[in-house]
């Protein structure tokens, strides 16, 4: 691989994705050999007679037919053996990646139910048209963190995710870490992912979910445990009324305009629950569900006319005056 792709299943960064990538290698080479053998047989069958005599109907020699029978039976038996081997290999991998506890022991024993391994970080991801709500679960309610579209995880620690959906079926898929898991309304599905090395891994919704299915991305940011702990503590802090006047003006724009109807900013009287939580917007790398880098220019374009960037998205266009826009960008830029 010449170039690292941000969203490739062939560039694994976690134990589950690694085992699946290894399974793919096995499956690919097996299939390649089978394919070459079969096509070679076909070509030989078609062209092994230099100048076939034109006959009305071939006289079938019983001995040749018997040999054909043996050959076809042998090929069928070989097929069955290959499939059996593949089945056994697959059971090992499927069992292991489905059960994170087993994954660590490289065991092929699979248990029927998914159990979060001890010490796992517990997260709940809820899919909405077209963004991801991410909640870090903690037994202490005040230590819960809510964010969106960016899942920050500690390296080397399993992350047990509960998936739910707020509207239609979505599918959570970060190829570098694990296979996908559907988010089905009315159910809770689970998956445990783990990042083996630090990095930013892109993912995308994989189940068609409406107009902006194509632009429902997310990033998993894997950080060393200590960095993660710092990040987590920062996320716990609510926002406060900014001291600087431009930002304060921006806050008033935010609270007086439609923004606050949908978005939540902890610590301020903006408690909408139907759109991404913006308490720490400025700490995130991207906006608009992983589509645009979180820069001032992109943010301005997004606020003024989201429909141009994601037609059909649930955020309405906002007619702000240049002053209002400048202020609100300063305010949002301060939400670290």
């Amino acid at each position: 691989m010449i170039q690292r792709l941000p969203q490739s299943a062939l560039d694994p960064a976690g134990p589950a994705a690694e085992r699946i990538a290894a399974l793919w290698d096995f499956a690919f080479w097996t299939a390649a050999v089978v394919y070459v053998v079969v096509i070679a047989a076909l070509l030989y069958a078609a062209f092994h007679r230099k100048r076939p005599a034109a006959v009305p109907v071939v006289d079938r020699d019983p001995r040749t037919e018997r040999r054909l029978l043996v050959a076809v039976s042998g090929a069928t038996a070989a097929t069955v053996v290959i499939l059996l081997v593949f089945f056994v290999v697959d059971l090992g991998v499927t069992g292991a990646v489905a059960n994170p506890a087993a994954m660590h022991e490289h065991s092929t024993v699979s248990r029927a139910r998914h159990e979060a391994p001890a010490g796992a970080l517990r997260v709940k991801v809820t899919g909405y048209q077209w963004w991801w709500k991410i909640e870090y679960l903690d037994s202490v309610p005040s230590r819960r963190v809510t964010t969106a579209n960016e899942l920050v995880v500690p390296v080397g620690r399993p992350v047990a995710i509960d998936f739910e959906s707020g509207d239609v079926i979505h599918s959570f898929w970060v190829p570098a870490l694990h296979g996908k898991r559907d988010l089905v309304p009315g159910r809770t599905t689970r998956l445990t992912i783990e990042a083996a090395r630090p990095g930013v891994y892109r993912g995308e919704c994989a189940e068609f979910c409406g107009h902006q299915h194509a632009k429902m991305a997310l990033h998993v940011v894997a950080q060393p445990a200590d960095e993660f702990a710092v990040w987590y503590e920062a996320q716990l802090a609510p926002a406060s009324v900014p001291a600087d006047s431009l930002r304060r003006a921006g806050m008033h724009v935010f609270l007086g305009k439609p923004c606050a109807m949908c978005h939540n900013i902890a610590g301020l009287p903006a408690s909408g629950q139907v759109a991404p939580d913006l308490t720490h917007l400025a700490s995130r790398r991207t906006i608009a569900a992983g589509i645009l880098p979180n820069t001032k220019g992109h943010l301005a374009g997004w606020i003024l006319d989201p429909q141009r960037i994601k037609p059909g998205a649930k955020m309405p266009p906002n007619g702000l005056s240049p002053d209002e826009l400048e202020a609100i960008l300063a305010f949002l830029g301060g939400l670290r």
Partner: protein
Amino acid sequence: MAPAPGDPHEDERLDEMHERLARVHADAPGLWGWLTTTDHKRIAKRYVVTAMAFFVLAGIDALIMRLQLARPEGGLVGPDAYNQLFTVHGSTMMFLFAVPIMEALGLYFVPLMVGTRNVAFPRLNAFGYWTYLIGGVLLWGAFFLDVGPDAGWFAYVPLSGPAFSPGKRMDVWSQMITFTEIAALVSAVEIIATVMHQKAPGMSIARLPIFVWAMLVTSFMVLFAMSTVATASIFLAMDRLIGTHFFNVAEGGDPILWQHLFWFFGHPEVYIIFLPATGIVSSVLPAFTRRPVFGYPAIVVSTIATGVIGYTVWVHHMFNIGLPVLAGSFFTAASLLVAVPTAVQIFCWIATIWTGRPRLTTTMLFVGGFFVTFIIGGLTGVQIASMAFDAQVHDTFFIVAHFHYVLIGGAVFPLFAGFYYWFPKWTGRHLGEGLGTLHFWLFFIGMQVTFFPMHQLGLDGMPRRVYTYVDGLGWNGLNLLATVGAFTFAAAVLVFLANVAWSLRHGARADADPWVADTLEWATSSPPPAYNFAHIPVVRGRSALWDRTPNDPIVVGLSTKRREVLLTTLLDAEPDSRHEHPWPSIHPLLAALAVGVLFVGAIFHPAAVLVGGALFCAAAFGWGWPRKKSEIHAIEHALEHGHAHHPPAAPSRRTA
């Protein structure tokens, strides 16, 4: 049965008989005859032409999609249009092209191959075509009005449900499904009944041509699969139109129920498309390798096994909803198992080519293309039977590549092989071989260039059904390549259409049996007369024409005053009784229109169900209304005296 005619007097008698049969089986002239015909060949040709028209339209959809995806952040169409494009493309290819065209080949060739005059229920057959046509026109009419369905061809709820798909779009989809399922069920019933009881004497179940076996198994699959999806689509329509809660989580419904119902149909659907294609391969190989297909019993058993195992694999479409590993493993095993019968068939075909004298006609080029392409699709199919691997590639372009390799490789290549093989039978002229070769190579190269890169795209993380993608993910080059391939592909289809247009006027003339083939459709003229055979042949072996001897008996004694067919027993095909087929009738069309009022009207108001139901009952009464005895005598008298009698729209004594 009587000895075959030999002397001049016999020939004269035969000519007279041809004339009388032609009069009895003639359709009324002009438009009226076109609307009322019950000739299985006319109806099947209509299916083929209509299905090819839908194939071209859905292909144009695909080209627009490929143009949109040629570069990142493409601006040709927006998400709303793109979602309609891929939904209509998929729904058309599956429901309006692939299944109907395979059924059409069955409807055309099964009666010819088993040596009978028509399908078992000729009027029902006409009804099936009209419902199919209404369903197709409904979908495409809606699409052109910007009301095309947009939730994907498997229309997962709740996205396709009332809350997230407002308007008529998905209503159109669910009703279109119901229409085409009715048509498919009708064709299946036709084929099953025809194969069971209208085989020529001597064509015992062990001598059925493999194509007929394939169509028989397919038809049984249709009975179960299509009724499941028709149930699902009616549930969806009821959820959307009259407020039921089959799939509404808030009221105890379940979106996963939809997936089970849909895929219990959806996976067998693949075999419903693929098995007839294997039948085509088994039909053309003898003619071009000069030997019967090796391993007839193995192929027949494989076909049946595929039909059975095909029903146990559907959950592999749902591996990512969080199944327990043990439950999933069962479906992994079944999905691997279903590869075995297909492998057996492939080995038998290779053995046939190996020991035969293969001749590289355009037909055989397409058979070769089938092997080279389909086997890739089969192998990736084995790979994605793994739950772990499927978790990575499910719903990505890898799957898009996989099923296009399976469906184009496994069905469209054999279909074109069948076109080049059977075109002389349909029209009395050959398709041009030169244009055919060009068609093949463009098609073959276009196929690989379009779809092979998609495997890599899927592994590189590109999900399917995205109307665009952002730059910087490493997908740009392969997407552009796929778009180039798609246009090569389209050029191939244009060459084919040009070939058909040219060959219809200028193609080399074909006699009854241009390929010296072994099945009964080649025993009658090209194109066949309305009554197919003057004398029903008697079959002596699996290769009906090759095993013929000069003194084979023929069937005599069928009426030349009525549309009579010979019924034979199920297993041994012993002559059993004579059976009269009905005259042509307008009532199948009227009944189909009534069904149209029912389903299309139901989109707008539930009362349409009552109105359409009443209209349907009226049409059905007309359909089955017996003819007066005096009228029958008049018709028979007219036929006796050489007037081609065009029966009025009134029904006959017996009905189908």
